[in-house]
């Protein structure tokens, strides 16, 4: 049985800067990382591999340079890494992305039954939280979102029991396999690659599946198959608060100014 993790290569948004003149993202020199939520998905697929002897496969849709992300997945211990890459996949929104990933999962399912598909709960560059559920409904898999603990899998009854993280409480729920699970950070702590694995990963083959393999109708994927489009990316208007004092060169003097402000607003009880 297979356990699949869907991982996306994203720009490290903690390092993204905005060009003050053009008001657009400065992408030059921004490193790419595995979407942080997806690294928890990957980690959990490795845990299930170790716990139940499942075969772990990492899937990523992206440009050819997303290969680096899949190599990292090899270094962490996945059995197989596949890059879904084709010019006609580009410009896809979440619906079109889930279509390509679903086609790849279906193809894998013909070789060996898929039991669990893990996705991050959202990406840090897109934040839509829809690709995982899109895969679930397309393939008719059970959908479990916001999962922070895998309790157990019962292979006889073909069910999985998990804990979901809701507002201020947790829910325990059981669903039939196969299942698509989106994960939150609390689920696990991703491992670091060890050096011998990292070296070995350099030699591993990353399969590339393009549309000659997946054979999807080009009108239903990529930009053409996307029912939403982004008309504008911009930096929010900054209606700055009042900067008081100079806290860097004169922290003590600035505390006086701040305290005066608080007294003026009657926010200090003297």
């Amino acid at each position: 049985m297979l356990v699949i993790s869907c991982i996306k290569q994203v720009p490290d948004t903690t390092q993204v800067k905005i060009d003050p003149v053009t008001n657009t993202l400065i992408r030059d020199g921004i490193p790419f990382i595995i979407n942080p939520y997806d690294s928890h998905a990957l980690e959990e697929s490795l845990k299930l591999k170790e716990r139940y002897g499942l075969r772990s496969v990492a899937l990523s849709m992206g440009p050819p340079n997303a290969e680096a992300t899949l190599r990292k997945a090899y270094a962490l211990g996945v059995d197989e890494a596949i890059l879904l890459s084709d010019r006609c996949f580009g410009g896809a929104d979440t619906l079109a992305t889930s279509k390509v990933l679903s086609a790849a999962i279906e193809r894998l399912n013909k070789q060996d039954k898929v039991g669990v598909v893990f996705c991050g709960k959202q990406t840090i560059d897109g934040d839509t939280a829809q690709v995982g559920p899109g895969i679930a409904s397309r393939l008719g898999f059970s959908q479990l979102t916001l999962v922070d603990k895998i309790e157990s899998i019962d292979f006889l009854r073909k069910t999985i029991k998990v804990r979901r993280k809701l507002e201020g409480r947790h829910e325990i729920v059981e669903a039939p396999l196969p299942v698509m699970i989106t994960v939150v950070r609390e689920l696990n702590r991703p491992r670091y690659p060890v050096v011998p694995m990292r070296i070995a990963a350099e030699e591993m083959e990353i399969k590339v599946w393009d549309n000659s393999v997946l054979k999807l109708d080009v009108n239903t994927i990529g930009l053409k198959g996307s029912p939403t489009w982004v008309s504008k990316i911009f930096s929010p208007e900054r209606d700055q608060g009042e900067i008081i004092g100079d806290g860097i060169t004169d922290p003590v003097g600035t505390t006086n100014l701040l305290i005066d402000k608080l007294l003026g607003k009657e926010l200090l009880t003297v």
Partner: protein
Amino acid sequence: MKTLLIGEYREGKLLDSTYELLGFAGQLGAETAMLLVGSETQLPSYGGTLYLADAASCGEYNPDLHKKLILDAVQKENPDYIVFLHSSYGWDLAPRVAAALRVAQLSEVIALADGGFEVGCCNAKMRRTVKPAAGRAVVTIQAGAFPALQPGGIPLLQKLSAAGTAALEFIGYEAAEKKDVDLGKAEIIVSAGRGIGKKDNVSMIQALAKALGGELGASRPVVDAGWVEHSHQVGTTGQTVSPKLYVACGISGAIQHLAGMKKADFIIAINKDKDAPIGEIADVLVVADLMQFVPALTAKLAKQ
């Protein structure tokens, strides 16, 4: 234009944030109908059509049945937009509905923008204007992004029922963690963000909170790192607060955090980056090194 608003009912209560759906529809200038899986004893103060199913028989959350109820109402109302709150409920249910209807979904909308919807991206550093292709779309709105609108009146009830077995089996809830603090009632909150650098520095922020007579709050990364208990977390995944004074220390201001504290009467941000998004909603910004400024402020307050 017509919207079908999906209200929310949790642990036997209608959520107040349901009225934010009406605020969204109001800004859109759209007609409304509402759907609620809840109880006749907890009706919203709203005079429009309300499709009501009984949570006692359908379950507070049974995704398959709830989806079926919504699809039923969609067929009757023929709405342009089906609108959810971006809560764990909307998070799980909205994409199921979008997939069943084969329509686009726009997640965590913050504002309306010429013919489209504004959503955050890149950790709230940027926003995008996203437009759905012609036709219907599913939308989830961010908590606190739209004003609650309570029109009053008694809903025109249309009762729905759904039957069928559930694919998922609900086993139970785990008790919520004990809260050692109720930030919702605090008048003064001093919050620590990633900018504090390490766990040892939480005590420095705690000391400032004490000097101001307030409670300690925290942003999500600080809670995720295990530096501060979750009960202190402010934001859409923590608590929404509205104190008289909110002091944000080393918090850059992710959208989810801002949504949780922007109702504070007076906001002070202490941050070394003057361009951090927190400056957008702060009344006063102190650009400083926390390690120098916060202890100096605490000492000065102690002398007052």
